[in-house]
């Protein structure tokens, strides 16, 4: 098959030894690349119930067929591991040059295990894998560490690194490359557990396409479509454009999801920033859309503007001062912490303090200075930061007293900036997600806001459409193409099949890609089952459910700004239908084919 190298590197960070392991074409045909390949490799290279921070725990960087083709938004890699936050699958995406250079190093994936004796950096290039001790990089933020590596060993290295939070094994520590993050689930802690501060890749080993002229035509066509109305929001305001309209329709999570709306939301809006301030646009490598927006402060310094950052460190915490929220966002980037989990855990703790269940200085709703003070302590697990570094699930378990009911997470992964009360299909999608509360893997907000379903209700009829969105997301994460290009595509499966056919020289059809989306979800399920998954994990905290009525009759509509509750019976019925349509058992378990299990057991 063209477009791929046909092998991956199995690297022991402790010894620096690397082994080239053949990768059959059949794996790419079935699971494509990216998330699909990464999950397959993780299953192959790991066992049951293992410690995600142990030396034997694999960290997989999986590239994909479309990486390196310069197709718009294709410069991404999947970073797959077991999450120290959830103890379940963590399939993250990492954007920009690292993906292209990583594939250019000559492998379809890097599988890293082992632990270094001293803090080190792993270097991978064609024909060479080297571990160099770099203890002087400890304490630096990720971008600083990358700059030192490039200055010392060459600007042509693309570097992914961890910040202080990863060094201290904070379970929601990030991996960072070029200002972008494999942000959720603690990938940074996994790399840090190997005493690797960074991974550097370089190389120009290209996989030449089978039909270059067809691929060129597809590339030009996608480029043109990527500049049309389907991507306008991302090109104009970026993701922060969500905030004000979400507030208007009552789905902006506010004060630990107790509300979906606040009169002060304008102060954090993209519109306000764009009207009065200087904002720059930036792009990932191989991207025409340029969703990244950076606010330029009075001192010339820049801060990324991302919806999830601003919601998680702003509305979720009742903090409405823009400068404070942007500074908190910047600090999380520097320290290497997932903003959603940081904000979600802080919000939970603030509510516990408010309810008298916890005493934590400087942790209160609306306390911007308190937030900025505690962030470095979380990264270093110091003082009150040590408790917040546990994440909301572990903290709730420690506090008890019913606090689990308002710890807003699924499987330990804190909820993103979409209130399930007003997007109830997404609520189901977050609950059943293999990774936990991940809106990107679900995409069900598209259905809730399509006009074709009642977003304040849930029923079994909409499950098929919800599954379709999940499968499409998995295919995009495995081709790889960014989900922000989704509306520029005519059909994810059909367009993807055309691209793969032109690249690989093998015929891919829409049905092949649809089947891949389904198969990838089965693999994710299998990994989680091996790590002890149980059906009771596929739920939302009780805060999101409608309280049981006292004797029947219609439930009272919530007050303005207060979100709707999900009907627990409707949720259970829809979840059962989800398992059925996925081909899983009543308990949500998947029985894999013996041939697949045999393939996963084969030694490389």
């Amino acid at each position, binding site marked *: 098959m063209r477009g791929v190298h046909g092998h991956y590197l199995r690297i022991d960070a402790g010894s620096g030894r690397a082994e080239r392991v053949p990768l059959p074409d059949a794996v790419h045909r079935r699971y494509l690349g990216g998330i699909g390949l990464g999950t397959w490799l993780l299953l192959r290279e790991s066992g049951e119930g293992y410690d995600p921070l142990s030396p034997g725990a694999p960290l997989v960087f999986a590239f994909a067929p479309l990486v390196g083709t310069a197709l718009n938004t294709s410069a991404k890699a999947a970073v797959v591991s077991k999450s120290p936050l959830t103890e379940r699958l963590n399939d993250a995406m990492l954007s920009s040059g690292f993906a292209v250079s990583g594939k250019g190093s000559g492998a379809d994936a890097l599988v890293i295990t082992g632990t270094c004796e001293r803090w080190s950096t792993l270097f991978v290039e064609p024909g060479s894998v080297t571990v160099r001790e770099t203890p002087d990089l400890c304490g630096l933020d990720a971008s600083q560490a990358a700059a030192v590596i490039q200055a010392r060993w060459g600007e042509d290295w693309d570097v992914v690194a961890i910040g202080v939070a990863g060094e201290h094994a904070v379970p929601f520590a990030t991996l960072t490359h070029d200002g972008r993050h494999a942000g959720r689930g603690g990938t940074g802690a996994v790399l840090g557990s190997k005493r690797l501060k960074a991974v550097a890749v370089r190389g120009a080993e290209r996989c030449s396409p089978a039909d270059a002229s067809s691929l060129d035509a597809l590339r030009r066509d996608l480029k043109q479509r990527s500049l049309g109305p389907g991507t306008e929001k991302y090109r*104009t305001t970026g993701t922060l454009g*969500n905030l004000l*309209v979400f507030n208007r*329709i009552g789905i902006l999570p506010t004060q630990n999801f107790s509300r979906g709306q606040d009169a002060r939301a304008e102060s954090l809006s993209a*519109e306000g920033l764009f009207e*009065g301030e200087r904002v720059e646009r930036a792009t990932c490598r191989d991207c025409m859309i340029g969703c990244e927006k950076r606010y330029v402060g009075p001192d010339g310094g820049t801060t990324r503007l991302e919806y999830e950052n601003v919601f998680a460190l702003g509305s979720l915490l009742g903090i409405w001062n823009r400068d404070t929220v942007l500074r908190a966002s910047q600090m999380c980037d520097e320290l290497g912490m997932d903003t959603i989990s940081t904000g979600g855990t802080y919000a939970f703790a603030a509510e516990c303090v408010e309810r008298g269940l916890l005493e934590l200085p400087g942790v209160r709703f609306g306390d911007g200075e308190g937030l900025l003070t505690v962030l470095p302590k979380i990264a270093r697990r110091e003082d009150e930061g040590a408790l917040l570094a546990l994440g909301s699930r572990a903290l709730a378990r420690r506090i008890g007293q019913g606090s689990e009911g308002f710890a807003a997470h699924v499987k330990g992964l804190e909820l993103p900036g979409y209130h399930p009360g007003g997007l109830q299909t997404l609520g189901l999608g977050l609950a059943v997600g293999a990774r936990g509360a991940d809106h990107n893997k679900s995409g069900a907000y598209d259905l809730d806001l399509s006009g074709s379903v009642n977003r304040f209700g849930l029923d079994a009829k909409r499950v098929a459409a919800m599954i379709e969105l999940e499968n499409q997301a998995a295919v995009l994460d495995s081709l790889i193409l960014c989900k922000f290009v989704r509306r520029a595509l005519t059909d994810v499966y059909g367009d993807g099949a055309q691209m793969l056919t032109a690249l690989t020289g093998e015929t891919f059809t829409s049905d092949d890609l649809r089947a891949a989306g389904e198969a990838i979800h089965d693999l994710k399920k299998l990994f989680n089952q091996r790590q002890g998954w149980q059906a009771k994990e596929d739920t939302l905290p009780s805060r999101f459910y409608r309280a049981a009525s006292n004797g029947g009759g219609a439930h009272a509509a919530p007050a303005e700004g207060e979100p709707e509750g999900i009907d627990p019976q409707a949720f259970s019925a829809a979840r059962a239908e989800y398992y059925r349509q996925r081909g899983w058992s009543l308990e949500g378990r998947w029985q894999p084919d013996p041939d697949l299990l045999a393939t996963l057991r084969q030694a490389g």
Partner: protein
Amino acid sequence: MTMSHPQSRSDEPRPQPGLEGLSAELRARLGAETPLETPEQCRAALVRLGLCDGARPAVILELYGGLRLKAGCRSLPLHAATIGEALQVLRTACPKVQRLLPPPHELEGHYRFSLNGRAVTADPDHALQTGDRLIVFSASVGG
């Protein structure tokens, strides 16, 4: 650490509900000498310009994101019988939005509409009633 505190919008005179943030350019287009202090005055100006039919329901169009930035207003009171008609009024009153806002029959997939903050529709033929607030937002809500 000292944080600057941008002047709160609550310090500014509060505009009439439904007539927020009209830019100088839009005011000029509606008539520099025309009083535009109330939604009714704004609608009357649009009727005088022939941009909408005064017999249609009186509604308010709320704008977000790129549309707001290009239109030069946060909301626009107007007369329209359907969502599509309201958007066409916007396109002609604020020509700068035309690049972002296709004609109603070409809108498929790119925008969503919420009536009064609750129901959501993608149908430009959806009927409007007097008093409705029509919220227009991008169909791309991923973030």
